[in-house]
C-alpha cells in the first residue's frame, strides 16, 4: 500500500527538481571518491613521468600498508560507537616488545611477533574491560590506558630505541617482494578482505553495526552489547600491534614513540572513509580509501615540492572538503 502511494507521487513530481536531486545524490555518494580522482588526474597532468608510473603506484600502496593496518583496526571501535586513543601507544609498545624479545631473549621472529600482537590483544582487552565493566567513556578510558602503555614502554626500553643486531630476516617482511610487489601490499589487501568479511558477512560484524547504530535496540534484541564492544577493542588493539611490528620491520629497530604519529592519521583516514559511498558510517572499504587518499596526497606533496605550509593546508582542506562536499550533497538530496 505504501509502495503504491510513493510511486504515484514520485511520478507526479518527476520534474526539474529531480534532475538536481540526482546530481546531488551522485555527488553525495561519489563526491569523496571524485575528489580522489581529481587529485590523481591533476597529479598525472602535473608530473606525468613520475606520478603516473606503476612504480609510484606500488610505492603509494606500500606506503599505505602500515597506516592501513591501524586505521582498519580502529574502524571496529568506531563502528560500535567507541573511540580508541591508545592505538598509537600500542603500536609503539608492540614494536618495542617485539624488538626487545628478539634482541635480549633471542626469540625467533615469529614468536616475537606473536608476543607483540598478544600485547596488543591485552591492551585491547584492558580498554574493553575499562569501557564495558567500569563503564568509562571510551575516550578517557583509552587515553588512560594508552598513557599507561607509554609507562610500560618506558619501563622496558628506557626511552631508547631498540635496535636489532641481526635484522635482515626481520627487515625482509617490509622489504621483500613477490612479483615485484612488496609484501606489505599483500598484507594490506589480505587483511582488508578478512576484515571486510568480518564486518559485513558475519553475525559478529552485524552485531557491531547494530551496537553502533542503537545500543539499546541491539541489547533488547539479544545482542551481547558488552561482549561485542570488547571484541572490537581487542581487534583494534591487535591491529595496532601489528602496525607497530610492521613499522619496526621497516627500519629494523623500534623507536619508543614510533607509532604515536599514526593516531591522528588513522582517525583522519577512518573519518574520511566514513564519507565514502555511505553517509557517515564507518566501513572497511571507506577506511582503506581514506588511507590511500592520504598517502596519495602526501606523495603528491613530495613530488611537486610544495612548501611545508602547503602540505598542511592541503591535508586539512582535503579532509574538510572530502567529507564536507559529500555531506552537503546528501543534505541537499534530502532537501530537494
Amino acid at each position, binding site marked *: 500500500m505504501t509502495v503504491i502511494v510513493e510511486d504515484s*507521487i514520485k511520478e507526479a*513530481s518527476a520534474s526539474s527538481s529531480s534532475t538536481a536531486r540526482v546530481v546531488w545524490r551522485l555527488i553525495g555518494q561519489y563526491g569523496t571518491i571524485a575528489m580522489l580522482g581529481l587529485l590523481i588526474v591533476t597529479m598525472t597532468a602535473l608530473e606525468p613521468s613520475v606520478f603516473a608510473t606503476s612504480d609510484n603506484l606500488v610505492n603509494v600502496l606500500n606506503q599505505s600498508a602500515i597506516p592501513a593496518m591501524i586505521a582498519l583496526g580502529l574502524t571496529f571501535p568506531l563502528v560500535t560507537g567507541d573511540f580508541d586513543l591508545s592505538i598509537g601507544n600500542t603500536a609503539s609498545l608492540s614494536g618495542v616488545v617485539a624488538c626487545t624479545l628478539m634482541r635480549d631473549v633471542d626469540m625467533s621472529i615469529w614468536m616475537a611477533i606473536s608476543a607483540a600482537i598478544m600485547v596488543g590483544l591485552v591492551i585491547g582487552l584492558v580498554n574493553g574491560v575499562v569501557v564495558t565493566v567500569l563503564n568509562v567513556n571510551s575516550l578517557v578510558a583509552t587515553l588512560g590506558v594508552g598513557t599507561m602503555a607509554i609507562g610500560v614502554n618506558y619501563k622496558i626500553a628506557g626511552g631508547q630505541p631498540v635496535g636489532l643486531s641481526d635484522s635482515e630476516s626481520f627487515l625482509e617482511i617490509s622489504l621483500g617482494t613477490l612479483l615485484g610487489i612488496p609484501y606489505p601490499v599483500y598484507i594490506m589487501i589480505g587483511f582488508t578482505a578478512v576484515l571486510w568479511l568480518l564486518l559485513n558477512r558475519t553475525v559478529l560484524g552485524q552485531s557491531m*553495526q547494530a551496537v553502533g547504530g542503537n545500543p539499546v535496540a541491539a541489547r*533488547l534484541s*539479544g545482542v551481547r552489547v558488552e561482549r561485542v564492544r570488547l571484541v572490537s577493542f581487542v581487534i583494534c588493539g591487535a591491529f595496532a600491534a601489528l602496525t607497530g611490528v610492521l613499522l619496526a620491520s621497516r627500519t629494523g629497530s623500534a623507536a619508543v614513540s614510533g607509532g604515536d604519529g599514526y593516531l591522528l592519521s588513522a582517525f583522519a583516514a577512518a573519518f574520511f572513509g566514513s564519507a565514502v559511498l555511505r553517509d557517515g558510517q564507518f566501513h572497511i572499504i571507506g577506511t582503506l580509501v581514506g588511507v590511500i587518499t592520504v598517502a596519495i596526497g602526501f606523495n603528491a606533496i613530495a613530488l611537486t615540492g610544495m612548501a611545508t605550509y602547503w602540505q598542511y593546508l592541503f591535508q586539512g582542506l582535503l579532509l574538510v572538503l572530502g567529507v564536507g562536499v559529500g555531506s552537503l550533497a546528501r543534505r541537499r538530496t534530502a532537501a530537494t
Partner: protein
Amino acid sequence: MSGTCSSEGAVTASRLEMTDISKRFGGLRAVDRVTISLRGGEVLALCGANGAGKSTLVRILAGVEHADSGQIALDGVPVVIDRPETAAHHGLSFVHQELNLVPKFTGLQNMAMGADRQSRLGLVATKRLRRLASEVQERLGYRIPLDVPVDRLSVSDRWMVSLGRCLMRSAKFVVLDEPTASFTDDEAEKLYKVIKELTDSGVGVLYISHRLEEVLEISDRVTVLRNGSVAGSYETAELTVSSLTKAIVGHEVEALAHRRGDASTGAPIRLSVRDLRRPPNVVGASFDLRRGEIVGVAGLVGSGRTELARLLIGADQAAGGEIILDGKPYAPRGPHDAIRAGVVLVPEERRSQALLLSESIERNLAVASHGSARHLMCRFRPRRSHRAAVDIVDELGIKTDGVTRPVLSLSGGNQQKVVVGNYLRTRPSVLVLDEPTVGVDVGSREEIYGIITGLAGAGASILVISSDFDELAVCDRVLVMRHGAIVAEVPSHRATKGHLTRLCFEAEQPAA
C-alpha cells in the same frame, strides 16, 4: 476471540507464570508482588494507567530489568532470565513499548538482529533470513519495506518492522507492549489477524494496550494493574469498556463527548493555509483555523500529516503556497521563528524528537521557553524555572516524586505530558499536536484532552493529528488528508470513525 486452543484437554499447551514479582526504583514501587499466568493459545491483556508498572513487568520478563524478588516459571520449571538473550532462548519474543530500531539498518537487518545465533561459522544467513522475513510479511498481509534503511520509513512502518522482528522468531510466548499505539485501525486489524493465527497455533500472547475496545475484542482474560500491584483479574467476557475503565482508573470516567463546534464558528481566522506544498509528501493543503477552535486531521499512515505539521512550524521549508497568521504573511525559517510567532508543534515521537531523555523533568520543561527567548544572552533564573516546572507538574498531573528526577524514569504517558507541558510554557496561540495521546492511558488521555479544550477555551487554536479517530470527537471540525492533500472537511457531529475511515480511503471526489 475465544481461546479454542487453551482448552483443558490440551496437554502440550505451555504455561508461563510470574509469581510475586516486585521491583523498586529508588523509593518508588513500580511493581509490587504481581502474579500473572499465561497459557499457550490465549491472550492475556494487561491494563492499567500510565505508570502502573506494565512495561516494567514486561521488561523484567525480557531480562532487561531485574526483579528485586519473585519468580518466573515456564511449564512449572523456575527459570532465571537475566539477559535478553536468555528470554529469547526460552521462547519469549517481545515488542517493547518504545521503538528500538537501528536507524541505518534496513528493515531486514533490523528484523534479523540477534535472531541468527545458530548460523554456521558465524556467517550471516541472508537467504534464510529473507525467506523468514517474507513469511512474516505474508502473515501480516503488509509489505514491510525490507531494503530501505528504517530512518527513511514513516513511524508506523517502523512499528511494522518492530512487529516483524518479534514474529521472525519462533516463540512460545509473544509479548506486545502497546503495539498499536501508532497504528490506524486498518493496520491494527492486520495485527489482530496475526494474533489470532498465533493463538490458534498454540502461542500465548501477553497484550498491553490503552485502547480498551481493542482489549475487549482480542483478549481472553484481563489483568488490571494499579500503582504497581494487581487490582483485579477478569474474564474478558464479563467486562465492558466502562467497567474496565473503572477498574483501571478506580472511578467512573465519561466517554469523550462530541464537541458542539458553535463556540468558535464566528471567531476570527487565526491561521490560514493556502495550497501549501512540499512534494512528494504534501502536494496541496488549504484550510483555515479559527481562534479557539480545535481542528482534527485524519488520514492514513503516510498521508502527509506529519509533513504538513512540520511545514507549519518551519521545521521543513515549503516549496510553495502561503500561510497567513493573524492577517499577516507567515513564513517561518525554522521552529524558532514559529515559536516566537506563537505556533508550536508537539512532535509525534517523544523519545527521539521531544525529550532530553537523560535530563531532569525540570530541564525538559524549560527547553521551549529557552528556544523562544529573544536573545541567547538572556538571563536564566533557575529558581523561577523550578517553580514553573513544579506548577506544570501539578497542573498536568504528572506522576513523579520530584521535578529533578530524570524524565527517563517516567512512564510513557507521563513523559508525554512533560512534552506537552514544555510547549505550553511558551503560551502558544496555535498548537499543533501530532499524535498527542500515543501510549497515554484513558485517564490521562482525558486529562490531555481536558488541557486541550481548556486552551481552546482560552483562545488558542489547536490542530490535532491523530490516528485514533475516536479521539477526534473532541474536535470542532476534522480535516481528512489523503496522498498529501486535504480532501475533505467533516463537521464534528459527522466525524464518526466509520465515516472518517471511508473518507481516508475513498478515491473519488468526496463531498466537501
